C-alpha cells in the first residue's frame, strides 16, 4: 500500500504520565507511566498497527498524539507542525486533518444529537459549510459509509453497534482528514460485524488515500489491516517492523508469546503447534520493573536484564527490537568473539 514514502507523522520520545495522588494531603506520590518514551513514524498512505494488552498504553498513545490527553513530554510532528506544542487554537485548527474513531460506538455519539448534527458538527466547528451544504455533505458521507442517508434525522439509539460505528467513521471523515487514529474500532462489535467495519476502513483508505494508526488488541485483525506493526508492553514499544517481519519472524520474546497466544480458528493447528504460555500478570504501569520491563515474565531473561533498559534498536533494516538478548548480526559476531 505504500504509494508514497513521505513521512506523515513522526512521534518522538512521547511520554504521558498520569499522576497518582495519595496520602493525607493528596500529594503526588508517583505516576502511572502509561506511555514512556515512545517514538515511531507513519508514512503517507500506510497503516501502522499498534498492538498490546490492556494497560500497555496503546490507547493513551493514540489519544496523546491527538492532544486529547496533554503529553507530559515529547514531540508529535505532523506535516511539519509539532502538535504537542501547538497553542490551543492552533491545535483546534490542526484537528481538521487528524481524526479519531473510538472504541465504544455507544459512548462516542452524543445521545441528544441527530446523526445529521453529529456528522455536521465538525463542519460547523470550522465554519466551512452551512445549512443545505451540510445536509448534502452529511448525505454524501452516509453513502460513503454505506448507511441510508434517510437516517440523518435519527438519533444514535435507533442504530445497532455496527451502524453506530459507521456513523463514527462518517464523523471522522467529515473534514476530509489525511490521518485517522482508529482506537480499537472493532473490539466492541460482534464477530460478523467486525469484518464489515474492517472492510469499510480498507475501502475508505484506498479511495481517500488515508493514513491510519490502527490500535487493537486483536492481533489477527492487526495483521490483516496493517503495513507495519508496533508491539507495546507497559508503556514502551518492544518491537516495530513490517507486518511480515513481526508475524513471521518475531524477535522479541514478548511478541513471540503474544503471537503464540492468538486463538486460531483451526483445531488442526493445536495438534501441530505447542504454544508459548507466559507466566504471571502484567506488572502495574505505576511501578514497572527495573531494566527491561518484560523481564518478570520473560522466559530468557537473566540478571543483566534487570539492570539495563534496552533501547529500541534496528536489528535488520526496518525491524526494531528492544531486547538485550536480540542483537544486530554485526554485533552478534562481536559478542561471540
Amino acid at each position, binding site marked *: 500500500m505504500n504509494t508514497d514514502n513521505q513521512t506523515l507523522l513522526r512521534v518522538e520520545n512521547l511520554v504521558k504520565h498520569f499522576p497518582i495522588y*495519595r*496520602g*493525607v*494531603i493528596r500529594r503526588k506520590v508517583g505516576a502511572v507511566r502509561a506511555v514512556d518514551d515512545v517514538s515511531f513514524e507513519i508514512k503517507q498512505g500506510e497503516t501502522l498497527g499498534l498492538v498490546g494488552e490492556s494497560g500497555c498504553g496503546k490507547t493513551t498513545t493514540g489519544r496523546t498524539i491527538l492532544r486529547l490527553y496533554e503529553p507530559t513530554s515529547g514531540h508529535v510532528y505532523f506535516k511539519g507542525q509539532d502538535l504537542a506544542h501547538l497553542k490551543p487554537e492552533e491545535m483546534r485548527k490542526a484537528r481538521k486533518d487528524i481524526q479519531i474513531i473510538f472504541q465504544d460506538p455507544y459512548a462516542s455519539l452524543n445521545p441528544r444529537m441527530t446523526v445529521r448534527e453529529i456528522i455536521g458538527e465538525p463542519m460547523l466547528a470550522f465554519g466551512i459549510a452551512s445549512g443545505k451544504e451540510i445536509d448534502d455533505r452529511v448525505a454524501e458521507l452516509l453513502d460513503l459509509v454505506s448507511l441510508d442517508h434517510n437516517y440523518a434525522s435519527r438519533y444514535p439509539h435507533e442504530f445497532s453497534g455496527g451502524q453506530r460505528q459507521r456513523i463514527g467513521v462518517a464523523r471522522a471523515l467529515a473534514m476530509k482528514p489525511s490521518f485517522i487514529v482508529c482506537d480499537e474500532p472493532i473490539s466492541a462489535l460482534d464477530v460478523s460485524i467486525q469484518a464489515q467495519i474492517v472492510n469499510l476502513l480498507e475501502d475508505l483508505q484506498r479511495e481517500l488515500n488515508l493514513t491510519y494508526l490502527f490500535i487493537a488488541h486483536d492481533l489477527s485483525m492487526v495483521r490483516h489491516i496493517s503495513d507495519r506493526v508496533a508491539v507495546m508492553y507497559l508503556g514502551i514499544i518492544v518491537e516495530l517492523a513490517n507486518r511480515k517481519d513481526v508475524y513471521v519472524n518475531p524477535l522479541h520474546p514478548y511478541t513471540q508469546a503474544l503471537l503464540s497466544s492468538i486463538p486460531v480458528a483451526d483445531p488442526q493447528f493445536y495438534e501441530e503447534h505447542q504454544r508459548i504460555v507466559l507466566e504471571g500478570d502484567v506488572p502495574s504501569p505505576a511501578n514497572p520493573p527495573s531494566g527491561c520491563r518484560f523481564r518478570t515474565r520473560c522466559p530468557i531473561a537473566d540478571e543483566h536484564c534487570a539492570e539495563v533498559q534496552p533501547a529500541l534498536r534496528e536489528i535488520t533494516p526496518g525491524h526494531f527490537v528492544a531486547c538485550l538478548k536480540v542483537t544486530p548480526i554485526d554485533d552478534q559476531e562481536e559478542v561471540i568473539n
Partner: protein
Amino acid sequence: MTNYIIRRLLLVPVLLAGVTLIIFGMLQLLGPVERSALYVVDFPKNEKQIDAVIKRYGLDDPFFVQYWRWLVGVQRPDTQGNIVRDGGILYGDFGYSRTASQEVIDIIKNRFPNTLDLALWTIFPMLSVGIWMGVKAAVNQNKFFDQAARIYSIIGTSFPTFVFGLLLLMLLYANNQWFLPGKMSDWVSILIYSGEFKQYTHLLSIDALLNLRLDIFWDALRHMIMPIITLSYISWATFVRVTRSSMLETLRMDYVITARSKGLKEADVINKHARPNAMLPVVTMMGGSIVGLLGGVVITETVFNYPGIGKAAADAAAQLDVVTILGLAIFTGLILIISNLVVDILYAFIDPRVRLS
C-alpha cells in the same frame, strides 16, 4: 485506611471553622446590643452602657477580629482583680439566653440528655426496621409486601411531621390520655428533685432502668412514645426506599448469580452476599439521616412539648432570641460533625476496598 481516617479527621477542623463562620456571619447581622449577650448577662440600658459594651468587647471591630474574640472570649480583671473570661465558644461559653434567663451552655446541659434519650430510642428501631423492610421489599419485588412498603414510603415521606404529631396527640392523648406530651409526670419530677432517684446518665429512661424503677420507666415511655413514632416513621420511609433500591441493584449483580450457582440457599445468598453489599450506600446515608433527625427534633419536640434542645431552639427562634439559638446550632453542628466522622469510619470498616487501601 490510616490515610483515609487521617484525611477524614483533618476535615473536622475545616468543617468546624466553616460551621462557626456561617453562624458567626449570621450573628453579625444583629445589632451590637443583641450581640452583647454573647459576653454580658445584663441588657445594656442606655447609650452610655451600650457604648461601653461595644468598646469593651470590640463589637465594631473588623469581622475576623470579632470572630476570633467570639471563639476565645475576652479576658478582663473582675472586681477582685482576678482575670476572668467573658464569652469564648471554644471554652464552652455560648453566650447568655435572655429569654430563658440562663447561660446557653446550661440550657444544653439540661436539655441535651432529653434529646439524646429520644434520639437513641429512635435511631436503633429506625435502622433495624427500615433496613429489614427495605430488604424484604426488594426480595419480594412487585409482590404485596413490596407494594405496601412503597406506599408506606411515599405516604411517610409526604406526611409532615407536625401534622402527624398533632394527629397522634388527637388520637392518643386528647381522646383517652394513653400517651402524654411533655417529659415526665409530676410525681416523677418530684422524685427527682427529692434526690431519691439517682441520675446516672441523665437519660430518664435509662436511669429508670438502672434504678430498677419500672414505674418510672413506663412513665418515661408514655411520654416518649409519640415523639419516637413521629421521628421514626419518616426516617423509616427514607431508609426503606434507599435500602430497597440498593438491594434491588445488588440482586442484579453477577456475584449473586455466582452465589446461587454454588448451590447456596436463597436466604444465604441474600443475607451473606447481597445484603452486606447493599448496606454500603445505606451506611453513607446514615450520616445524613442523623442530620435529619436532629432537624426533626426541633419540630417534634415542639409539637409534643418535650423539653429537649430542639424545643429550646424553636422557643428561642419564636422570640427572636438569636444568640441562644445560634449557641444551640453550634452545639448541634459539633454533634453532627462527630457523628458523621463515626459513620465515615464505620463505612471504612465495612468496605474492604476502603479498609485495605
